[in-house]
């Protein structure tokens, strides 16, 4: 399943200023603050029903929209 659109909607709600489509380093470029990252994890759990285990909440899995989508797809398959 592709979560791209839902994910973009969640991200827009958290911070409407950012250009998520092109950004390849959401954390390094400080597009998302740490608080917004926590909100993102909470919203993914609430809206998409995917609970991200703590050991998967690492910068490598949250660099860009594409990378987050891959993580979500992997977790959804495992579930």
């Amino acid at each position, binding site marked *: 399943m592709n979560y791209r659109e839902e994910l973009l909607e969640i991200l827009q709600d958290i911070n*409407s*200023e950012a250009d998520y489509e092109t950004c390849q380093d959401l*954390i390094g470029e400080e597009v*998302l*603050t*740490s*608080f917004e*990252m*926590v909100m993102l*994890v*909470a919203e993914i759990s609430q809206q998409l029903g995917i609970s991200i*285990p*703590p*050991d998967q*909440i*690492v*910068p490598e899995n*949250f660099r860009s929209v594409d990378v987050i989508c891959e993580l979500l797809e992997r977790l959804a398959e495992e579930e």
Partner: protein
Amino acid sequence: MVTNVLEYLEASERRSPDKTAYADQNGSVTFHEFADRARRLGSCLARRRIVGKPVAVFMDKSVAMIEGFMGAVYSGSFYCPIDVEMPAERIRTILGVLKPAAVLVSENSRERAQALLDGLEGNPAGKEADARPQLIVAEEAYREPAEEKLLGEIRKKALDTDPLYVLFTSGSTGVPKGVLISHRVLINNMEWLEEEYDFGPEDVLGNQVPFYFDVSDHDIYSVMKFGCSMVIIPPELFAFPVRLVEFLNEHRVTAIFWVPFALCMAANLNAFASAVPAYLRYIFFAGEVMPVRQLNYWRRYLPDACYCNMYGPTETYVCTYYNLNREFEDGDSLPIGYACKNMEILVLDEQNHLIRPGEEGEGELCVRGCALSLGYYGDPKRTAERFVQNPLQNAWPETIYRTGDLVRYNAFGELEYLSRKDFQIKHLGYRIELGEIEAAAGAVEGVSACACVYDRGKRMILLIYAGREMSKKEMTAALGSRIPRYMMPNRVIHMEELPRNANGKIDRRKLEELWT
């Protein structure tokens, strides 16, 4: 008797010159290296006749910034940390109030600072060319020698009631307020920490709080007072629980002074599922209400640590504290406890009658004692409104500070925070006057009326406005030049007309009912 915070630094430098004092991502400094740089910086300022004057420190959060603070103190001046992430307009407003004699920068913040100063309307320090704030680059100042004699002469004239720093907090009219803190306030707080806890050189503090927030003083000054070390935690780690715990363990962090929000993030992300911060023994939190559910998460994984809820607006510093000594159920209210040493809490009802422990009723928390702030910088009117004569004392002048916080005593005789009397909120650990956001939104073209309300449950700031309808993106872009990111509304709601009460004022209660 200690009268200047530098005495703490110098004592630690004498005891253990080669021990690590502070560390950040760029490396660490020993006590001697740190004090030496601060003295060189202080001498550089003093040679330029910057003595007893405000010094703005405009740097990214780093060890160098703390060196900048102490450099200002060595010159007999007082510092003002500036958040470099703030919108330029807000920084200029602050500089306009502060009128700094110098702006202290590092090589990598120099250009940004210069652009800010160039953009100042008029000259903040007066019309004379030589009254302009001087831009001092720390790396250049370090190359100048320290002048012990000059610094010694300055110290001789210093009093413990002299200002140490000024911190700007959100102001309800849209103009931030500068709260002046004296050396005495800090010394009083350090003596309280010494009597109540057992910090020592082996302790390592893990700093989370920004340096423009007074809770960070406990990190910065405990290092000088107790000879311990402090490491700045990279802020992005708070979103990555496993990495955060690894960092705390790698640096053997034993004590933290964090805002509750940071503790909550770790709990919400189940940070301790695979490993715990094994060296932590002191967990202090301050700045907003700590939710018990998340606190219980910490207590479950770290049952032997000492947990302390500290309370106090910047104007009163930490004035009450509560060391957790019993269990609390999720949803319980955590007490703010008892007065710190050398401070007294007066709970005054609307008729200024004193409510005592064991008595029912709620009142405003008022504070007396030597740890009160000196007042608001350059603002005698607002100072006179909040720093007032103790109504219970008619025999001599005695100032108390009215916090605007409503409290009561619980069955244990402990103070409990209830709510605010005004529209100040605590959001993500930041103290925010909703009026400041409203003032910024009111200045956006097309907005005819607006109000902010806070949804405490969801931790969201809601901006409700009337006038020309615009997208959230358009509104936040317009607000971005006026207010910092942490004040940005999470929801922007357009209404044809805002509800008003019988007096014609915007009906906030109605807005809360409608939208939270």
